[in-house]
């Protein structure tokens, strides 16, 4: 196995307990919320049936997910914050602490960009693992819902409907449109690279590096944000706008990686 993949594994391995904790937290909060809300719903329906009231519409798994907007968003937001901080910590943890692992990491017989890419890949693995875990949880939660709700109160719903009924899912985490997923996560990946390169600017030039890093993030952020909000529909056709955006992203990506690789292999100080 090549050293890049070994480094990816090393980084994943170092974060495994944090990742499992996030998964556990997500599962715990979501299942608790789901069980509680479903119980309340079923009780309400039973009560209505006992009183002979006719309810207009049964309820579906998607309805319950729709009721749990906030509760489902909490573990997701926590995970985003934790992973967001880890984008920085994945570097700084190698400088701080008794082991100062950076000494070992940067004297491994491999090109330094592998270290950079492995750390980035590890972050992406964590993000996608959390998203995938959320999908698995939804499957599990749907099964749980089906067990809890008697079929006479239950309305069937599509899996996509359940995803669509939570705004955090449909707007950010799991957009139903595949292209949208690629674009969102593509921009996310780009943002991670930009932050990595900013960290390396600081690690290479220390105090003045902080200023360079802030400027660099601001410029890249403006370019990426500008491309997102690019409103040229009055002049360009949609596919041309897409091409322009794509070029901007590619330029930012190219520049960020070039600079990042250069810093990590030539300028960084341990």
């Amino acid at each position, binding site marked *: 196995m090549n050293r890049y993949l070994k480094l990816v594994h090393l980084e994943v391995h170092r974060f495994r307990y944090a990742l499992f904790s996030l998964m556990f937290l997500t599962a715990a909060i979501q299942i608790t919320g789901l069980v509680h809300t479903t119980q309340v719903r079923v009780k309400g329906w039973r009560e209505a049936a006992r009183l002979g009231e006719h309810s207009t519409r049964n309820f579906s798994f998607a309805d319950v997910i729709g009721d749990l907007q906030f509760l489902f968003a909490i573990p997701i937001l926590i995970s985003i914050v934790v992973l967001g901080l880890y984008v920085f910590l994945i570097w700084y943890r190698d400088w701080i602490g008794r082991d100062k692992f950076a000494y070992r990491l940067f004297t491994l017989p491999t090109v330094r960009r592998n270290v950079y890419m492995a750390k980035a890949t590890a972050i992406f693995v964590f993000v996608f693992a959390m998203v995938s875990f959320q999908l698995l949880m939804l499957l599990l939660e749907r099964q749980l819902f089906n067990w809890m709700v008697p079929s006479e109160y239950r309305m069937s719903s599509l899996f996509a409907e359940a995803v669509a009924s939570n705004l955090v899912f449909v707007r950010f985490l799991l957009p139903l449109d595949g292209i949208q997923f690629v674009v969102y996560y593509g921009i996310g990946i780009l943002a991670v690279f930009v932050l990595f390169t900013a960290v390396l600017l600081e690690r290479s030039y220390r105090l003045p590096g902080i200023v360079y890093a802030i400027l660099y993030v601001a410029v890249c952020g403006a370019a990426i944000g500008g491309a997102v909000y690019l409103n040229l529909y009055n002049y360009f056709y949609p596919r041309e706008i897409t091409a322009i955006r794509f070029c901007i992203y590619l330029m930012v990506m190219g520049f960020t990686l070039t600079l990042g690789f250069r810093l990590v292999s030539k300028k960084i*100080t341990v």
Partner: protein
Amino acid sequence: MIELVRVSQKYTYKEVLKDVTFTAEKGQITCLLGLNGAGKSTILKTIMGLTPIHGGSIRIDGEEINQNTYERVSYIPDHLAIPASMKLSDALRFMEDFYSCWNKDRANELMRFFDLDLDERAGRLSKGTAAKFNLVLGLAQDSDYVIMDEPFAGIDLFNRERIAEVFSSELVGNRGVLLTTHEVKEVEYLIDKAVLLRDGVVARSFECEQVRSEESKSVVDVMKEVLLT
């Protein structure tokens, strides 16, 4: 041959190294000597590419530093750079994974020599044991050169002797060794060549044997002469 030619380094406008020039030969033990802050550790870091240089050149057997350098030169920093949660066996596994020059038999031999426990975690080692394990990680590589930063710092007398023993043994063999130390007296009989540093400048570099025979001075004598005047 590790060769530094007019190497200079700045850290936010302060010159840390100025025109540092010296060589460390294969089969010899070269010692960087100097007071605290003279730039001894920085020189080792520049050789390992852990901090950039702003002038001059560093060559190892005629080659500039590249990814293969790390297979040819093993680096033993002044602390054990292994995550605290890692077991020693995992750390050996890690080294074996990444270094194609890793010599498993030598590692086992060194582990036995220093009497180290494979199941212990890196973070729980005492300072002396950590230093020994650090030596294991560096010496178990089939490298041409070994670079050591303060291998004796903070280590008790008994262990110091045990470490010093290694230098004259097969475990170092015909490799070139470049080390920094404060404890020059302890190693004086081991070293072939000394490079005296003062404020980032090479004040004097000399063959120990030559100084002993021609000037009848010990390394410490020369050190006092050069650094304290």
